[in-house]
C-alpha cells in the first residue's frame, strides 16, 4: 500500500472513545420496548422461515402460491371521515393484500415495531382482499405482510427496501409533506 494511504489508515485506526453515557441512553430507550422477538410468535416464525429446507409443490399449488403472493394495491386517501384530525400532519394509508387462502394477515413495520399483534388486517367482502388503514406521519417506513403466523411477504406493488437493515425482504413507503412513494 502507498505510504500516504498507510499513514492515513493507521491514523484512522486509532481507538475512538464514545461517550460511555451512550450505554445508558440506549438502555433507557429499550427499557420501554417489548422483549425482542426471540420469545414471540413473530421471532420464532421468522427463524423458522429463514431455515433452509426442501419441499415439493404441484403446479396447482404453485399457482395458488403465486396468487397469494400477487399483492397489493397501495391506496392513498385522506381520512376525511375523522371528525378531529390530529395536530400532526398524519395521513391515513390503506394497505391491501390479495391472499385468498390466508386465514389471518397482519401488517408489520417500523410504525408498529414489527409486532404482528398490533395491526391485524380485515378480510373484505371479496374474501381475497385483506385491508387495513394506518395513520402515518411523514417519514420513511419499512413494512411487510405477515400471513397465517408463518409467511412473511414484501409488498410487490411497492418499492423494495434496498437499504433493508436486516437482510430480510420488505417494502418501503415514504410519506412526505406532499407526494408519497
Amino acid at each position, binding site marked *: 500500500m*502507498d505510504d*500516504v494511504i498507510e499513514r492515513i489508515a493507521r491514523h484512522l485506526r486509532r481507538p475512538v472513545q464514545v461517550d460511555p453515557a*451512550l450505554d445508558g441512553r*440506549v438502555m433507557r430507550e429499550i427499557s420501554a420496548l417489548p422483549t425482542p422477538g426471540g420469545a414471540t410468535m413473530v421471532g420464532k416464525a421468522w427463524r423458522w422461515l429463514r431455515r433452509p429446507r426442501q419441499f415439493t409443490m404441484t403446479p396447482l399449488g404453485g399457482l395458488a402460491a403465486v396468487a397469494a403472493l400477487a399483492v397489493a394495491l397501495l391506496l392513498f386517501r385522506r381520512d376525511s371521515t375523522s371528525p378531529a384530525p390530529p395536530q400532526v400532519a398524519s395521513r391515513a394509508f390503506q394497505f391491501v393484500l390479495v391472499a385468498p387462502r390466508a386465514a389471518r394477515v397482519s401488517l408489520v413495520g417500523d410504525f408498529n415495531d414489527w409486532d404482528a399483534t398490533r395491526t391485524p388486517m380485515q378480510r373484505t367482502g371479496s374474501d381475497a382482499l385483506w385491508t387495513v388503514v394506518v395513520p402515518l406521519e411523514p417519514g420513511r417506513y419499512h413494512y411487510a405482510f405477515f400471513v397465517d403466523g408463518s409467511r412473511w411477504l414484501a409488498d410487490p406493488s411497492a418499492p423494495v427496501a434496498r437499504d433493508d437493515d436486516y437482510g430480510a425482504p420488505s417494502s418501503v413507503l415514504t410519506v412526505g409533506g406532499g407526494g408519497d412513494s
Partner: protein
Amino acid sequence: MGIHSVGTSDAALVRRVQTGDTRAYADLVARYRDRLGRYALHMLGNREDAEEVLQDAFVRAYRSLARCDDPERFGAWLYGILVNRCRTAGARAARRARRFVNDPAALETAPLAGPDGRADWDDTVRWALARLPSESREAFLLKHVEELEYEDMARLTGAGISALKMRVKRAREQLQAMLKETERV
C-alpha cells in the same frame, strides 16, 4: 468480519436478551460501542451525529433481534445496521447542506477550502476524508480502517466486489491527490 467478541459469546448474550434479560444487552452495547463509534465518526465526520446514529443502530438492533439469524455473527449483523444508518444520516446531511446552496453554478466554480497551513495531520486527514464521495469513503473505511475482506464488505453494503474495489481504488487516488495538494500549500 473483523469484529470479534471476548468473554461471554455474543450468541450467549443475544439468547439471554431474547429470553428477557435486558441487562445482557448492555454488555453487547459496551462491547461494540467504541468500535462502531469509530466507523460512524469517520463516516459522518461529526461526533454528535455519530453518537446519534450509533444509538439509533443499537435500538434498532434490539427491536429486531428476532431477525438476527445467526447470533454468533451478531457483530457483523449490527455492523450492517450501522452502515445503513450512516448512509441515511449522510444523505440527510447532504440534503440539509444543499438547502443552503441556491446557485449550483457558483458552487461548481467556488474555490475549495482546505485545511490552513497550521492544520495538523488529524485535521488534514479529516478534511480529505470528508471530501470523498460517501460511497468511496464508506468503501475506504471498511477496507483500510476496519480491515474487512471484500466478501464481507459486499455482504454489508450490498455492492458487488468489483464495484467495491473500484471505489477503494478511487478513494486512494483521491486521498493521495488531496494530500499532495495540501503539501504544496
